[in-house]
């Protein structure tokens, strides 16, 4: 009995073997590399012989103060992005849902989903061109009497450029889940509301919004876990030394510190801090999503 069962299940283990090996090497392996955060890591001496400094790297980071600004930028930029994107997607979904002309609706959807599929390198190339000092946006602004804005080099403007370009890329695509949720609402509810003399706005307020409330909460909860990912690709593609103060986020800072300046230990200490906080946030968000929306990841 046991042997037969084993024989039956063996192929399942064999199927999982390649993935297990790859995950051990490339996902779990790097986790051991985090010991660098507690060392003064020297590649020539390796993990075993490098000097151990305990929490030295962390206290150094706290003292230098650079990281406080970077942390603040990260949270500030990603919270603004999440809020703006969610709001824009909901408004767009509600408006799109009011369209009665199906072909027109499909054309709009086809167009507004497109930017989602372009990499931030491509988009960086496009926006650097558009938002340049002598680019088309400033050119057009000039015609209406606005003096040129240094979009990508002004610390006051740059975070908003990040939010705006993020919404530009993602809002259209973000409506998909909301449209799906709206189409799942029972049409009889609307008919009953019309009988009761409810206008369009009243229908949206009392039927559509409550109908998609749970998916809005679910999406917001799940995005909580990525609050320390302020979008490496986007920031990298758009920023420059002039806006490090307002635009530098954890991932870009770690990239410059670790891979360009070879400050392995300091960069890894920050990486580790990010991993631990993200781990807690993601766990909380999955737990909440599971608790309130019965969301199962597996």
């Amino acid at each position, binding site marked *: 009995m046991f042997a037969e069962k084993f024989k039956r299940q063996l*192929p*399942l283990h064999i*199927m*999982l073997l*390649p993935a297990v090996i790859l*995950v051990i*090497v*490339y996902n*779990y*392996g*790097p*986790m*051991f*590399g985090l010991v*660098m955060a507690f060392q003064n890591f020297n590649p020539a001496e390796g993990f075993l012989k490098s000097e151990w400094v305990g929490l030295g790297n962390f206290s150094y980071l706290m003292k230098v103060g650079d990281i406080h600004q970077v942390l603040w930028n990260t949270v500030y930029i990603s919270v603004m992005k999440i809020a703006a994107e969610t709001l824009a997607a909901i408004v*767009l979904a509600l*408006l799109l849902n*009011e*369209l*009665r002309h199906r072909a*027109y609706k499909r*054309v*709009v959807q*086809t*167009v*507004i989903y*497109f930017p989602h*599929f*372009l*990499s931030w*390198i491509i988009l*960086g*190339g*496009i926006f*650097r*061109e*558009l938002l340049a000092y002598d680019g*088309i946006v400033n*050119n057009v602004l000039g015609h209406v009497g606005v003096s040129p804005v240094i979009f990508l080099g002004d610390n006051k403007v740059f975070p908003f450029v990040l939010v705006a370009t993020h919404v*530009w890329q993602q809002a*259209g*695509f973000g409506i*998909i889940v909301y449209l*799906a949720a709206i189409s*799942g609402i029972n049409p009889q509810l609307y008919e009953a509301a*019309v009988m009761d003399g409810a206008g369009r706005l009243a229908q949206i307020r009392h039927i559509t919004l409550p109908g998609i409330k749970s998916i809005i909460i679910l999406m917001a909860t799940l995005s909580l876990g990525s609050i320390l990912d302020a979008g*490496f*690709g986007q920031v990298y*593609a758009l920023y420059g030394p002039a806006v490090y103060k307002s635009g530098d986020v954890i991932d870009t800072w*770690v*990239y410059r510190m670790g*891979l360009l300046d070879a400050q392995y230990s300091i*960069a890894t200490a920050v*990486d580790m801090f*990010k*991993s631990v906080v993200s*781990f807690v946030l*993601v766990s909380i968000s999955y737990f909440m999503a599971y608790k309130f929306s019965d969301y199962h*990841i*597996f």
Partner: protein
Amino acid sequence: MVEEKSTGRKIFIWLNVLFLSAFALLCIVPLVHVLALSFSSSAAAGSGRVRLLPVEFTLKAYEFAMDNVHFWNSFRVSIERVLIGLPVELGLTLITAYPLSRQNKDFKQRTIYVWFLFISILFSGGTISTYMVVKSTGLIDTIAALIVPGAVNVFNIILMINFFRNLPRELEEAAFIDGAGHFRILFGIIAPVSMPSIATIAVFILVKHWNSWFDGMIYMNNVSNFPLQSYLQSLVIQRDTNLLMTREEAELLALISERTTKSAQVFIAILPIFAVYPFLQRYFVSGMVIGSVKE
């Protein structure tokens, strides 16, 4: 449902159409501008006279791109990356998702494997240590560096598990009674009826491979190993173009404005996405809906 249209309602409908059209335009105007730049003369582009139509039409920028060894080299690397990466990652997704889509009672250790994968997405070792692992496994400057480290995509696997679980169970039970093994059931029965789901995952993988640039940038020391997006990154963002050019190319570039050549190369990189877009849209959308609003 017949609805009476009040004046207010009519105004709303028109404003709505207007607003959505404006938003849609906003999404494509930047692309049109870049396209127009790429076909304009460098003088016109440099003086900011180009809006949405080419000014002083010329193909110079494209000729420059066509003659650019690095551009074509990176284009070839990207194609290679997609052609190898897609089957590898798709195959891995299939054979990993199948056992995990079994019932717990048929596969006792399922839960252990599920947690094993789940933890790998909850916690990460960060960029620096991942780089070191990739380096110590000897992948630097090989195409495998772009394929192997990210080949197990847990989110795609989860999506595939959900697809498989929605199939009628009778399908495989019949085959099981006939004495078919798990590999036969997966590739002979389940895979053929899951083609739309497989296409969805394939599209996800395709877009990922075409758009990835960071791995190429850090795992490749030699510029001739850069995939297209990593090359564009060095051209558009780092601006260390001098490193990438031969002397003749540098002289030629001086004649053509940087603006038009960059635009041309950016646009060529968009073209493949554009070509598969109808297909993309169809499958990506269905995948998004299943992935987030699943029952």
